[in-house]
């Protein structure tokens, strides 16, 4: 089971801050495609991805127990 976190407008659009996905050994990119259709998140493609609190590449493989966060363009400061 992979935990997935949404923030900012992704959180508002999906209506969720956290979802779980039954998957193991999938690429971040696959996971993204699956979530984009499930939750109707047209902006998901603009988000960066963090795996276990570190920025990752689209081809990173995530396993059960990992925490994947979708990071829309940041606007702190």
């Amino acid at each position: 089971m992979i935990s997935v976190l949404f923030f900012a407008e992704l959180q508002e659009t999906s209506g969720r801050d956290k979802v779980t996905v039954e998957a193991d050994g999938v690429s971040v990119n696959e996971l993204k495609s699956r979530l984009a259709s499930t939750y109707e998140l047209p902006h998901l493609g603009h988000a960066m991805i963090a795996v276990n609190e570190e920025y990752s590449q689209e081809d990173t493989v995530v396993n059960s127990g990992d925490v994947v966060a979708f990071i829309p363009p940041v606007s702190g400061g």
Partner: protein
Amino acid sequence: MMAKNYWITEEPIDPGDCIEKVVRNEAGAVNTFIGTVREFTKGKRTLFLEYQAYVPMAEKKLAQIGNEIKEKWGNAHVAIVHRIGRLEITDIAVAIAVSTPHRADAFDASRYAIERIKEIVPIWKKEHWEDGTKWIGDQQENTSYDTRIPSEEEMRDD
């Protein structure tokens, strides 16, 4: 006052908390940058802001910025705090303090810190105006995600 030098808080920020953490015998200069909530941006009135963070990762990224500064400027101590939640006009959103032996480095490192925060730290700002709200999409405030009905232009901007 928090024991750590890089933290996210829901409470009002006292810049003195950052300053105290970096003052030390070898330092002759402390530069502090404070970002406050501005009422007008490009002529549009902000009522208040809402900040959200991916807290544990944001604190890690703030610490990473501190380490980058130490690599670049050597003898520097850094403390950074960012507030989340609802912030009113003039409230402090972020405070950075950098101490160095000499002043030029303190200015440069503090400037570096705020630019890096706007690039890599997972914190988001939602503008609340009289006629709507918007999660701001990048530091130039050119791109944004309208939470109501995006205009065609805004969609192209994405």
